[in-house]
């Protein structure tokens, strides 16, 4: 069934009795060509592209809870490709291009709003660093431009560019093609599109082990029985180490706590995405009118998916530096997710030492915006048993070999990325 305004109109006349299931809840079959562990955005996207791009017929996505219930449903919805190092820039730009056609491709409105992502600079040194990144973006074929302080003020009314701020704004690097998207819609859209192509989506099915024989994966053990598979891809974000350990793998990943929060909804107030340059904080306004805000990790590892107040308060202090006028609004809720922090801040999309077992994790702050790109290249990696050029550098063994991709230059301290 195709979604369209016409269909909506027709169903409106029929009390919406004709809508079909967005995706099929499948019973797990005894065997598949590929099993994807993890029903978040990345896992569902991978399954979709396996079916669409590589014609793989028997694919199952196995999810321990409900699809999209992990980081896909908890992030701050930002999409951008303004990374510094080439491997990241190229990869996230591939993803951004896929975002631009995603709603049409999936026939599901993911509400991708290209309202721009503006990185503020507060000193000469920071301006130079932003310029370096912006210039690299342009040479990599990615859009970027520099806004002076006056141009920033015009682009973002209500932003404080005065000297009252502790770290006055000197300007900002803008990527106009970046923006936000509706996070749940991405999971549901990919699920629906994958399901239509025959992918089995199996919710409430937790992987409890791998079947490995002679250094090759043969299947997974789950709470709903053993499922044989020629190939298995792991895409479980914060639980990557936990699941990989079932296959005997130790990884360069540490799971940390990242919180985000929203305000009560108000009429349009901020029309772009703005990131603070003198502290880790960013804000945008959802289509519902809520300010969506995020900042640093809590800075201790956690699988709890809930955090404490101090980091929220630090983030809000940054927020009021940028937008003093937010002060009288109210926070509506704050929540946490499990961030798979890698040892260089860049993802791992890779084969593993176990034949037929593929790994997708270590996303740090980059997971949501990477969803289409990640699914696309991970599908390629699985289908062809070799990485796509866009994830060739995100190999698991890059740390061992000394080819870390460290955008922040923070080294092997996961929480510093």
């Amino acid at each position, binding site marked *: 069934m195709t979604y369209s305004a016409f269909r909506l109109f027709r169903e409106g006349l029929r009390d919406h009795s004709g809508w079909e299931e967005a995706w099929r809840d499948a019973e797990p079959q005894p065997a598949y060509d590929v099993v994807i562990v993890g029903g978040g955005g990345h896992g569902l996207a991978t399954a979709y592209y396996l079916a669409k791009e590589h014609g793989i017929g028997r694919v199952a996505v196995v999810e321990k809870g409900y699809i999209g*219930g992990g980081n896909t449903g908890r992030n701050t919805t930002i999409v951008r490709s303004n990374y510094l190092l080439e491997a990241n820039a190229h990869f996230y730009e591939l993803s951004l291009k896929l975002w631009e056609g995603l709603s049409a491709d999936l026939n599901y409105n993911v509400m991708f709003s290209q309202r721009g992502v503006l990185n503020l600079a507060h000193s000469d040194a920071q301006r130079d660093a932003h310029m370096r990144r912006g210039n690299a973006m342009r040479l990599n074929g990615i859009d970027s431009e520099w806004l002076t302080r006056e141009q920033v003020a015009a682009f973002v009314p209500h932003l404080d560019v005065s000297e009252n701020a502790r770290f006055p704004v000197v300007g900002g690097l803008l990527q106009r093609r970046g923006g936000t998207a*509706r996070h749940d819609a991405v999971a549901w859209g990919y699920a629906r599109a994958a399901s239509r192509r025959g992918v089995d989506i199996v919710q409430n099915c937790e992987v409890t082990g791998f079947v490995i024989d002679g250094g090759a994966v043969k299947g997974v053990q789950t709470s709903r029985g053993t499922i044989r598979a020629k190939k298995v891809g792991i895409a479980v974000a914060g639980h990557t180490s936990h699941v990989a350990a079932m296959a005997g793998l130790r990884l360069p990943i540490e799971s940390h706590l990242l919180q985000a929060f929203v305000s009560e909804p108000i009429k349009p107030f901020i029309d772009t995405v703005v990131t603070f340059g003198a502290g880790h904080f960013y804000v945008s306004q959802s289509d519902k009118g809520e300010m969506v805000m995020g900042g640093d990790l809590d800075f201790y590892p956690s699988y709890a998916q809930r955090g404490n107040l101090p980091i929220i308060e630090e983030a809000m202090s940054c927020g009021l530096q940028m937008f003093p006028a937010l002060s009288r*609004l109210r926070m509506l809720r704050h929540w946490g997710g499990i961030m798979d922090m890698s040892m260089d801040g860049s993802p791992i999309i890779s084969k593993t030492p176990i034949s037929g077992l593929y790994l997708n994790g270590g996303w740090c702050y980059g997971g949501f915006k990477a969803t289409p790109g990640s699914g696309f290249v991970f599908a390629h990696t699985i289908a062809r048993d070799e990485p796509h050029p866009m994830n060739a550098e995100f190999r698991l063994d890059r740390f061992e070999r000394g080819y870390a991709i460290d955008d922040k230059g923070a080294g092997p301290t996961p929480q510093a990325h």
Partner: protein
Amino acid sequence: MTFMRSRDAGPPPAASQLPQPGRLASGGAVNREQALAFSFDGKRLAGYAGDTLASALLANGVHLVGRSFKYHRPRGILSAGPEEPNAIVRIGGGDRADPNSRATMAELHEGLVAESQNRFPSLNIDLGAVNSLVSRFLPSGFYYKTFIGPGFVGQNRAWMVYEKGIRHAAGMGRGVPHADPDTYEHRTAHCDVIVVGGGPAGLAAALAAADSGADVILVDERPALGGQLRFETYEIDGVVAPDFAARIASDLASRPNVRVLTRTTAFGFYDHGTVALLERVTDHLGPTAPAGLPRQRRWQVKARQVVLAQGAIERPLVFADNDLPGVMLASAVRRYASEYGVAAGRQVLVFTTNDDGYRTAIDLKARGIGVVLVADARPVPGIVADWARGAGIEVLAGHVVTQATGRGRVQGAAVAPLAGGRARIVACDLIAMTGGFSPAVHLHSQAGGKLVWRDEISAFVPGRIGQAARSAGAGNGVFALDALIREGAEAGAAAAEAAGFARRELPGWQVADEAPAAPAEPLWAVALPEGVKAKRFVDFQNDVTASDLGLAVRENYRSIEHVKRYTTLGMGTDQGKTSNINGLAIVAEARGAPIPEVGTTTFRPPYTPVTLGALAGAEVGQHHAPKRRTPMDAWHRANGAVMTASGLWDRPKTYVRAGETYREAWIRETLIVRAGVGICDVSTLGKIDVQGPDAQAFLDRLYCNPMASLAVGKARYGLMLRDDGFVMDDGTVTRIAENRFYVTTTTANAAKVLMHMEYLLATAWPDMKVQVASITDQFGQIAVAGPRARAVLEKIAGRALGDEVLPHLGTAEAVAAGVPVRLFRVSYSGEMAYEVAAPWRGALAVWEALVAAGAMPYGLEAMGAMRIEKGHVAGAELDGRTTPADLRLGRMVSAKKHFVGKAMLGRAGLTDPDRLRLVGLEPADGVTPIPAGANLVHDPNAPAPMQILGHVTSATWSPTLRKSIALALMRPSATEGGRMVVAAAPIIGAVVPVKVVDPVFFDSAGERMHG
């Protein structure tokens, strides 16, 4: 002659003259002696001190207070508490406006100005109501199914256009485009027991805990303690409930070990017994708030034991057009009558599934309000039905309201048998509905507590929790008054006992007889009557109907989280307080699954929304982050310095003299340093004192270059690596005594290096006898550089400082300007140079003495220009991705000893010959400046993406060499075969072909520092 129509309206009537048609002749805790004037949507109205905005509106017969989010249907006040989904208004104006405020919690003050939201142009005539007309095409999630094309306008372009319209339609209140004039305070408190909720269970708990001697904090979100006691009519200890509450409140207030916080919401229960509170200090005072008080306080309470007595929230019933203004929660109607003396309606119909609805009916009747009917869904109601009949109230058992009727306001109700059959319309002006009570389990759940479904009360109650907390009272699913009081007392005593205090006798209050409650029967939704097309609302604020929930389940958004996100059930500013359970139950029915299997969505803090300013507290404006100043800070500013932020420090970039431009200033400074002598404030560098018999061995392990051979009185440049082999920081190490070292770091890495040292000593080498301490703030440090540096220093130190006393890379002590100082002979600029360390308090005197002796101050620009001329790496090159070899410092790496990072240095990636390597750049034409931030390519006009060969790290105009120079990191292969390299900065449109040269542009033999 001007004709002026005179409107001789005279002054507006005093508040006490204004009529309040909905006010009962007597009763209520409001102060009828003190009338207050307020306005709603421009209309001047009156209420009494003690009213909320909602009770005052109802006293004026105002029911229409807002428009719903999506359909813009008229909405009225539903409740009398924080769970209110409809009466969301803007209170105040100008820079003190508060959008999205609940009228049911806003205390009335003189001159309060309130405005309805989400309507244009007015509440009565709202253009948004057109959404209602097309509502059949706008079910939940409709926007996922459309707004995708048309594709021919370009990828994703169409959505951007639709989105603008959607964004304007969305949002509830309007933002406040001003800085906030109010201040907010943060406070911390510790206690033995915190009791959340000042209703009967909470009061009993607080008393019991206080009696044991524990330090108790009691928190309630209302202006006064009591909870339900403030509006019920039964008696406790022979005293009517509100008076009893006042008595207990007074008792608690008198106890030195009890702190009572009213107007305070416990909004979050975090780890390890931390409860966060929001205290509203002055909101209720309006313009009479005393100056100097914060508007609100955010408390963090560390409690050894937590008692949760937050009560329960009444559930609405789900029937056709249940969103009409005049449909209210039954206990709220009773509360308005009892506590505020307000009749929300004069002909009330009660629709109930439990005994509590009868309490409302009987109470209202006793106050002279007409009660037309009690429709009880239960076929066999309990004894309360007889009591109601005895009071002259008609009771229809086994009957339900199938639809509210009326235009914009309740005018009647369609009442039909639950089992089916014709409905009759009963005239009424208010429908008081109650579907039972849901324990407020939010804080318990936030803290990781489990929930247990209890079928017999159709409610989730708190289950196991991994924290020192317990629940009591209605919040724990105990509704009978005497039982919940006993439970509260026991919880308070047990909490105090767990905190180490001996139990005392529990408060035993005599509750007047209550009827044994007949079981409530859950009625999650009333079926739509045959042929009726109407909406049955589950979430009033977000316009989520029972049909929406059914649609979500049909489309396979079956898990409760999917339902919530797809339909936005419970995601409004009321956070689903009156919709969560009804929604969950309807979904369970649609799925044919028991409620506990469907589960409940996660409760997330805050319990009610918290002002963002209160979260930031005092850390706003300049107080967002501390400012660190060097001892010479005031001197710099008084002498023309242009300052810049360097982390938390402020540092001078250059000192601009009269008639000089900024650029001229730092060029002058550079030339004077190279020709004469200059001084630079380098106090911000990290300084670490390292002492102990193993100090030298420690430093030798820490740096990649040898330190074991460093003699007393000598200094050495040090390069420190991370465990992964990359450069962490550079600095100098000076051995000032046998077992004592003075170590410097870069400004930016001071804290990191200290922590690195401390970490290694604590975990890797605990047997080493070494102590490290930060002395960054203890010493000011001044660089003295230039051919005349020695002369100037000798002058202020009053002693000779020749090579035999202070050789290159040596150290010596002296006294300058009466201040004991340590001199280091190290050079960053390449000139003969020293650094002078003086105790913080004396540093300014030393600085001034140097100035008086003829040294000229120079700042970061000149310092930067000189170090770039000398090819010295700094922060831009030490970007965390460079090895010593990358920086042309490979020869420093010791081949003989072990040091941090050695093991990982040999990895393929770190020894790859085509790694980015430090080079110097000059413009090929000798003239065009090389821009900072430029990247290096072969041909900037090639199609993107193109290969990037490297990037400029530091660029400057060189005053010494009179040309543009830059340092860069570049792949050696870039210039293979003599290929030309271009520095490209597309953002500013700069393209500069460059020559790749040695990064040491000036004095490559390093002779100048020897004088």
